[in-house]
């Protein structure tokens, strides 16, 4: 599973909502190797502006077609430049990076918030034919375009929105205990904002269900060389989110 830097060509770029886009890249070297939860590190401009690469989870991959899919939100200059890419443009792509999800159990629950749902798409596909359920949260109906994406790869989606415009009103962490009481899930995979993750981890611990979380950190190198992304773990040590993670067992991380 060696890392490479390749010029990936854009196969398709489409808008999901005003600010969220889906980018399909042809990059067989990575599509072949990638495991759910890994990410790519893109150089969005051949310029010093922006200078650093940008990390994006691999939301899906098709080894046969040699393509990977990213789902990203335009939040700043780097993602704005990414959004300008057209079919047949090239983008400098490093990957696959990081340590992905560890596939186990028989009855998984995936919990995702915001753009944290991206890596869960590929995870859900990887978990097939297990009966995958996804608990997803977002601010409002508009932001919750995710059910459409997950419908093909999972059995059931549970939805919460902050404003109740779709699904249950509240946070994923409000609905989670209820789900765990009803169904005997044997593993939880979570990705999303820090606040959501710590909530999920706490509930998983209460219900005594193993839980993996995918973390986000500001990254320079993406390959373990700069130490910009390290996080404190049990035992007074620190680990690198870019190589030891982004996926960690919940018990390892200090919240």
């Amino acid at each position, binding site marked *: 599973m060696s890392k*490479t830097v390749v010029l990936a060509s854009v196969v398709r770029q489409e808008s999901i909502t005003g600010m969220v886009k889906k980018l399909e890249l042809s990059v067989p070297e990575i599509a072949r190797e990638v495991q759910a939860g890994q990410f790519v590190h893109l150089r969005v401009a051949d310029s010093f502006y922006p*200078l650093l690469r940008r990390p994006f989870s691999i939301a899906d991959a098709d080894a046969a077609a040699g393509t990977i899919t990213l789902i990203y939100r335009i939040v700043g200059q780097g993602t704005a430049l990414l959004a300008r890419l057209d079919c047949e443009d090239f983008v400098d792509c490093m990957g696959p990076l990081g340590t992905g999800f560890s596939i186990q159990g028989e009855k998984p629950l995936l919990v995702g918030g915001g753009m944290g749902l991206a890596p869960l798409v590929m995870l859900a596909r990887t978990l097939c034919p297990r009966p995958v359920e996804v608990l997803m949260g977002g601010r409002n109906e508009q932001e919750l375009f995710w059910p459409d994406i997950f419908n093909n790869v999972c059995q059931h989606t549970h939805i919460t929105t902050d404003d109740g415009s779709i699904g249950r009103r509240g946070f994923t962490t409000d609905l989670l205990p209820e789900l765990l009481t009803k169904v005997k899930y044997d593993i939880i995979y979570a990705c999303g904002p820090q606040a959501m993750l710590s909530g999920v981890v706490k509930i998983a611990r209460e219900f005594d269900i193993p839980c993996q979380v995918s973390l986000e950190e500001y990254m320079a190198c993406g*390959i373990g*060389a*700069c*130490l910009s992304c390290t996080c404190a773990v049990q035992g007074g040590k620190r680990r690198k989110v870019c190589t030891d993670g982004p996926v960690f067992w919940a018990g390892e991380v200090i919240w």
Partner: protein
Amino acid sequence: MSCAKDMLAVEIAGIKMKTPVMTASGTFGFGLEFIDFIDLKQVGAIVVKGTTLVPRAGNSGRRIAETPAGMLNSIGLENPGVEEFVNQILPQLAQSQVPVIVNIAGNTVEEYGELAARLNLPDVAGLEINISCPNVKQGGIAFGTCPDSAAQVVGAVRVKTNKPVIAKLSPNVTDIVVMAKAVEAAGADAISLINTLLGMAIDIHSWQPVLGNTVGGLSGPAVKPVAVRMVWQVAQAVHVPVIGMGGIMTAADAIEFLLAGASAVSVGTANFINPYAAVNVAEGIRDYLMERGLTHVGEIVGKVGNCL
């Protein structure tokens, strides 16, 4: 005989390197992080992450921020400590047959001496004294901005090692030449510069400093003009070789430093963007020399103001 290999071979303070392109401390991990991309033997020398006597967790909060054509970092010298480095990492790295230079940082003059003593090992090609880290409150920058303390640190290392000693200077000083002369007089075999410029960024939405540590070190293309100027000033003023760095992204950048008087260069921030950077830069220097009918990289060192 101008065989393509020999064109780039240099010896800096007794350290034999295949190319004059090294990797800067803190930007190339322990080298092993790059083996998927390059054959480490193709690098002139690897300067590993700043190493301290006891393990350090580094700074908390956000550690990097992007700035125009640059970046701020406040890693805070996170490292596993000299014991783990010597026992776990060095043996692996030694197998790659590339000169390994250990960047050392202490809180006191004595700690620098102890580190030097602890690193008197066959697999260590040389020591780089980090008297200039802006991210550590005690020591570090303080040593790096006062010629007397810088000299003391170099002296303390000098008496404890027979390895080549490289003193790494901070650019955050009024007169870089005074600093360079002080460390030369104290026994440094080579001088490397520049470390990062002290900078800061503020998040205008949250009103908080972007970095957990409030301030951090500025590196990358943005600092190149300052670095080239300082290398040029120092190279004229000292007799020991100078290792130039600060914003080198391409061979053209490296050649600027060589012309300014650096005998070798280090690639830093560029490693984060292009993991092949150190190798690409060396290849580009070779092409440059060949296009001009030159036979060795030494022929351009310090040649600014001369005619080709």
